[in-house]
């Protein structure tokens, strides 16, 4: 039975999550050097085209179609067959099946866009497109089925992931790291100063991400009532706590940077994602604070101490933030917020932490191995990296034949 309030909220949420991908494009685009702004933006924006197509053709079906052994969905929704104006009998049963399908499409799109931040300024665009199609098919689709698909093995195990801490963030973060291992550092890293070309653009992007995240998390309630409101407040609270924490930590080290503060907000949003609809809104505070600390010092260790050129810190933000968020869900979850969830460690159920760890290990391990294999495959066929001259000139001109800030005349 279609509920108009739920439907309105889910359609609105789908639009909000859609806006996160151009938001991410600006967030990433502002952080690179000016010769790579457009190419960085394109890596995200192109996902709206590529994944938007693949999702309706077969992505939704293989993720949410009839279960096969807990690992993959069936072909019964291929090309949106049997996905219509009536609700699904299994998913979001108060909204048209099409609304649930398109809400899920936006998640798939942004997940692929997320990992591109690790490989900017040197990855070949054609190779990235081929890799993205393979990754969506062989990594995102199966793991989305494990966690969210009816009959998925992690769902049956009882691992909780409200809005995509493992499926979206851990998946993208771990894959980003694996891809960087294959691709190597940017020329000149870490000795050359690589200055962000436009930090105000980063702030605009972060603002759009925060805004869109209400659709991501509160929309994942799939209804427009109390649970959505609880997830909404938990989301905002975690973002606030993490932004504030990052600002203070940055201040202790030297100055309260704008780039750091908006990064903190995003990391807080990442961490609250799996927990949003299972924890009390006030639990957003410890979840956000710890997320900022883990991500900050993770970046120090990974990038500064080890010299790993995960260029826009996708692993530190989404991998570490995703791991913490999944664990935090196992700690802070309570059935008083969501009867469909479980109690966590603080409510006397230590087993939930173990289940969350299984989810982290399974999705993280699978994503790392598959990304390494698929990345290698694309490297030997298409070649992952641009040539030296193309990298020096910049990817805007060498990959797209455009420049962001052109023209001598005003």
């Amino acid at each position, binding site marked *: 039975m279609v509920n108009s309030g739920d439907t309105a909220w889910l359609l609105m949420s789908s639009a909000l999550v859609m806006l996160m991908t151009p938001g991410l494009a600006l967030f990433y685009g502002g952080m690179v050097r000016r010769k790579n702004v457009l190419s960085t933006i394109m890596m995200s924006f192109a996902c709206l085209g590529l994944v938007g197509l693949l999702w309706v053709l077969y992505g939704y079906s293989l993720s949410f179609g009839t279960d096969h052994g807990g690992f993959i969905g069936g072909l019964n929704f291929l090309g949106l067959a049997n996905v219509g104006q009536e609700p699904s009998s299994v998913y979001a049963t108060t909204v048209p099946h099409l609304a649930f399908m398109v809400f899920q499409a936006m998640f798939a799109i942004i997940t692929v866009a997320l990992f591109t931040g690790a490989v900017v300024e040197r990855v070949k665009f054609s190779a990235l497109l081929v890799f993205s199609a393979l990754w969506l098919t062989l990594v995102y689709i199966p793991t989305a089925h494990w966690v969210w698909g009816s009959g998925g093995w992690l769902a049956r195990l009882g691992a909780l992931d409200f809005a995509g801490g493992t499926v979206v963030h851990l998946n993208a973060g771990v894959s980003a790291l694996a891809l960087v291992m294959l691709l190597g550092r940017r020329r000149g890293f870490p000795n050359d*100063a*690589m*200055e962000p070309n436009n930090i105000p653009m980063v702030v605009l992007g972060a603002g759009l991400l925060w805004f869109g995240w209400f659709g991501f998390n509160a929309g994942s309630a799939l209804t427009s009532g109390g649970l959505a409101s609880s997830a909404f407040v938990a989301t905002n609270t975690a973002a606030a706590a993490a932004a504030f924490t990052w600002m203070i930590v*940055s201040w202790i*080290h*030297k*100055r309260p*940077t704008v*780039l*750091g503060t908006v*990064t903190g907000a995003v990391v807080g949003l990442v961490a609250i994602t799996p927990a949003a609809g299972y924890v009390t809104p006030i639990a957003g505070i410890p979840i956000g604070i710890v997320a900022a600390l883990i991500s*900050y010092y993770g*970046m*120090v260790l990974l*990038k*500064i101490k080890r010299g790993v050129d995960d260029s826009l*810190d996708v692993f530190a933000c989404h991998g570490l933030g995703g791991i913490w968020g999944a664990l935090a869900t196992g700690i802070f979850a309570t059935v008083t917020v969501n009867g469909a969830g479980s109690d966590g460690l603080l409510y006397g159920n230590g087993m939930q932490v173990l289940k969350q760890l299984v989810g982290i290990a399974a999705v993280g391990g699978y994503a790392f191995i598959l990304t390494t294999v698929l990345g290698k495959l694309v490297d030997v066929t298409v070649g992952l990296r641009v040539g030296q001259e193309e990298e020096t000139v910049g990817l805007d001109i060498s990959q797209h034949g455009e420049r962001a800030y052109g023209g001598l005349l005003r």
Partner: protein
Amino acid sequence: MKKIEAIIREERLNAVKAALEEKSYFGMTVSEVSGRGKQKGIALQWRVGEYRVDLLPKLKIELVVLDDDVSAVIDAIVINARTGETGDGKIFVMPVETVVRVRTGDRNESAV
């Protein structure tokens, strides 16, 4: 005829311009430049950690004057651009072979 190129601090431009104007030197070309000298650079922050930027923003003033006016112009610039700290800039003076005023086609002294 001489061309005077002065690299100065951005915040000293108005004082230098006013002093030159007072002596009736109106014409000049100003551009934003980056450079370094003894001042070295500054440390900026990324999300974590710092990176050094060793080219700092300065302004470059260019003007062409008659030989007799060179020292007066240099004095005006030096007095008004100086703070006494490293990074105050430099002045270069070089000979000019030909000057043409585009509007009239006038050449050399009458075009300066």
